[in-house]
């Protein structure tokens, strides 16, 4: 039996989307980036927009995202992907434009750009991978690092008195009038990945409506940076991260859900989760 005999239409149950290239991804085993890449690529394929989309990759672990998508890509300077996406959408309004950023890129150095792109209501899709750490540079503290969590630049745990509080940027963006769809998703189980795909599909479809930013945060892990096995990392995320970064839609069709904020607690009173957290 040859390879061709096996790959017959009646046998075919799964096919990798052609929107992903043949390049081997450099992501660590267990990392969420690869899953989110595939979801985005599948959405692009299903919407039939492979020849009408421009992606913006960040600086961080996903800096080489452009090698994995067979669509036109622009590699942005650190934190500036929302500015890049804004300009491209304004110059090429007929094109689907998405930015792809990590938490150091989006929530730290690029805080101004993401705020203002959202505030202007740019008609773009933003994907935000939040794993609470700087992965590529070797596991340093990010604005999204949980209080008490250890990283190489807070080896005794993040002390909010010295290092500031864990930043929930997505909740802030949801309150800007320029955002149309804001949600927090995860991809560490098949069910969650399917849900995330629906959200990303909606975030792309919304560009046809011309109503503002569609923002999808994917809360993810970094087993290398967290110094855990993939299974441990997912477990740890479920037990800790998701308490502070609960999953769900914050804003749909331009309507903000106030219950979501009730669920996470107000900004001046973070819910009692994670102080003095130690993972070892």
């Amino acid at each position, binding site marked *: 039996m040859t390879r061709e005999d096996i790959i017959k239409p009646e046998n075919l149950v799964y096919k990798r989307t052609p929107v992903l*290239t043949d390049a081997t991804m450099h992501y660590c085993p267990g990392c969420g980036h690869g899953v989110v890449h595939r979801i985005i690529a599948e959405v692009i394929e299903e919407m039939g927009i*492979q*020849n*009408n*989309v*421009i992606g*913006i*990759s960040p600086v961080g672990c996903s*800096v*080489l995202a*452009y*090698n994995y*998508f*067979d*669509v*036109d*890509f*622009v*590699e*942005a*300077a650190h934190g*500036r992907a929302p*500015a*890049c*996406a*804004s*300009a*491209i959408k*304004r*110059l*090429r309004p007929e*094109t*689907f*434009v998405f930015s792809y950023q990590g938490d150091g890129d989006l929530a730290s150095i690029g805080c*101004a*750009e993401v*705020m*203002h792109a959202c505030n202007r209501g740019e008609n773009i899709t933003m994907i935000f991978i939040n794993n609470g750490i700087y992965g590529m540079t070797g596991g340093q503290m990010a604005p999204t690092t949980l209080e008490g969590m250890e990283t190489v630049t807070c080896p005794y745990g993040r002390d909010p008195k010295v290092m500031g509080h864990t930043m929930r940027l997505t909740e802030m963006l949801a309150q800007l009038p320029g955002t149309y769809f804001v949600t927090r998703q995860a991809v560490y189980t098949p069910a969650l990945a399917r849900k995330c795909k629906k959200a990303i599909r909606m975030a792309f479809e919304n560009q046809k409506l011309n109503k503002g930013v569609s923002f999808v945060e994917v809360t993810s892990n970094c087993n290398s940076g967290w110094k855990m096995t993939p299974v441990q990392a997912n477990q740890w995320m479920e037990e800790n991260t998701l308490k502070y970064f609960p999953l769900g839609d914050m804003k749909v069709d331009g309507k903000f859900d106030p219950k979501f904020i009730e669920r996470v607690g107000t900004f001046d009173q973070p819910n009692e989760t994670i102080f003095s957290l130690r993972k070892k």
Partner: protein
Amino acid sequence: MAKELVLMKGNQAIAEAAIRCGCDGYFGYPITPQSEVLEHLMAERPYDPNSPAYTGMAVLQAESELASINMVYAGASTGKRVMTSSSSPGFSLMQEGLSYIAGAELPALCVNVVRGGPGLGTIQPSQSDYFQTTKGGGHGDYRLITLAPASVQEMYDFVELGFDLAFKYRNPVAILSDGVIGQVMEKVMVDDYKPRWTDEYIEQTCPWAATGHRSTGKHRIVTSLELEALKQEAINDRIQAKYRKCEEEDARYEAIQCDDAEYLFVAYGSAARICMKSIELARAEGIKVGLVRPITLWPFPTKAVAEIGGRMKKILSVEMNAGQMIEDVKLAVGCNVPVEHFGRYGGVIPTPVEILDALKKMIK
């Protein structure tokens, strides 16, 4: 509207030229003394189909100079003719972006209406960003093709010229102006409106551009990242070859009253204009002095300065800074002719009489 003669500020001329030459997008942030660029664009509304100046050009007041230059980077990535403008402190913030634009080999236009520094400095005119603009500014081995307008007409003309050079070399081009040329009003002959490039034209002429349409059948990536050193060296070789070609083909200057001159001013931009008045005063006293005005600061018109300067007894490099261009003048003439510097800085403009006095002092 057809060709016509108008009275406008240098900053307005930049904006008007952008609209009329078919620029696709402007992204900027207010800073004195160049805010009239954005003000004029927002008053003319080239993005609004109901405006008489409608061309479809996008205009956006960005949240910062960082955002502006990165918007320019991204716009240029898709083959569009895009620009920004700023003044010294804002231009400093743009240096990272300029390095990326040069590294990704993208065409873009950046205007710097220079004010006195360092730091927040002053808002008055200066030429103290010569080093920053011609020698680098951002990181890495790159050059900015630098045009130095000395009149409002040149502010207007250099926008289209800047885009032409930017696309010829796929490299960022700077217009290095200053508060005098930005704020002065002079007569300008403006062109008829030219249409913006069509998407088909961009697909044909810019195969490198990430237009989103994958018309070559393969995805196009715009990046300045190459992790393998040998490949990065090859990219640098290609960029350097462009720079050698640019030095050969596009160094520009103007020579004024040099034929019978015994002494030479070398000055650019508003300093050159003031020197022209000093020449008038000097010649009335029988001092034969001429002027070489570099129009491109990079590539510096080395051959012209060497050739004309070589015939002189002495050369005075007149700059609104503490002595920056003088290094290029000295490199051009070697040890053949003594070169001295005269400058006022920190926002002070030298007067024609001051320059004349400096010339006389040098002659003695």
